[in-house]
């Protein structure tokens, strides 16, 4: 279902299941997003920082949460999106984005849903948590 006037507290968004993160994805996402931090792209730099490997951009998972939202409501209804990066996503990690309505309120003449968001890997690790506010429909 999409965000409508039937949306209530507890409504779950359809999960967005992503394929495993490949090195190709990281190589594409860096220049496309503008995030050229070499720690996501260059194994030598990652090792020089004491890491075993590169890891995915946090903003890649944030962008996937964006897809979760825009797959549910028209982007013009998104009022805010906030994410916290709680664990890194390793190469080959397989993320799934989920969202659930935690409150519905009326603000500025529109009904808004507050969503609790998460990105979790197949092994159960939560990599991102977040919140978003979307307008359900104009009153």
């Amino acid at each position, binding site marked *: 279902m999409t965000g409508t006037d039937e949306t209530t507290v507890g409504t779950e968004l359809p999960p967005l299941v992503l394929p495993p993160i490949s090195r190709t994805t990281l190589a594409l996402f860096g220049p496309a997003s503008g995030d050229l*931090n070499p720690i996501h792209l260059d194994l030598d730099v990652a090792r020089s920082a004491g890491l075993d490997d590169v890891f995915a951009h946090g903003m890649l998972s944030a*962008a996937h949460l964006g897809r979760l939202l825009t797959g549910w409501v028209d982007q013009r209804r998104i009022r805010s999106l906030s994410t*916290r990066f709680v664990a890194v996503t390793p190469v080959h990690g397989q993320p799934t984005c989920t969202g659930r309505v935690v409150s519905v309120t009326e603000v500025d003449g529109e009904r808004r849903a507050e969503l609790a968001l998460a990105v979790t890997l197949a092994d159960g690790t939560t990599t991102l948590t977040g919140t978003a506010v979307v307008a359900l429909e104009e009153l």
Partner: protein
Amino acid sequence: MSPTAVDPSVVGRVLPEREVEVERGRLRSFALAIGETDPVYTDVDAARAAGHPDLPVPPTFLFGVGLGRGAEQDFGWIAELGIDIRAVLHGDQAFTYHALAHAGDVLTLAPRIVDVYSRKGGALQFVVRETAVRRADGTPVADLRETLVVREITA
């Protein structure tokens, strides 16, 4: 070793404003990288049919709209704080939206450092930056807030 302490007097520092044009090609590359399948984000005709003047800028794209010039330029403001970019993790990122931006828009980014603090006896430091994004005509597009975490490098 613990990272060098960030001087708290940088709180309030206004960083240089930048103007950037949103490019269709970059939006399409972004859509490809994130697996976007909605044609509104890649096909101008589909975008217009949905009421957009051009390809819409997706929700998190604004984080990097002013980046991509190379790590030295992009992260120069971090280096100026005495921070090694390899030690930086993205702690959180928030967006408050006022209006959609679209391909072709020229956006002004106005960043400033709003907070610096440390935890765990200085082993972790936090730098918070806010960036106001507006269109050339002054219309507010979004307010961004990011927290960077500076960790210890054990290498």
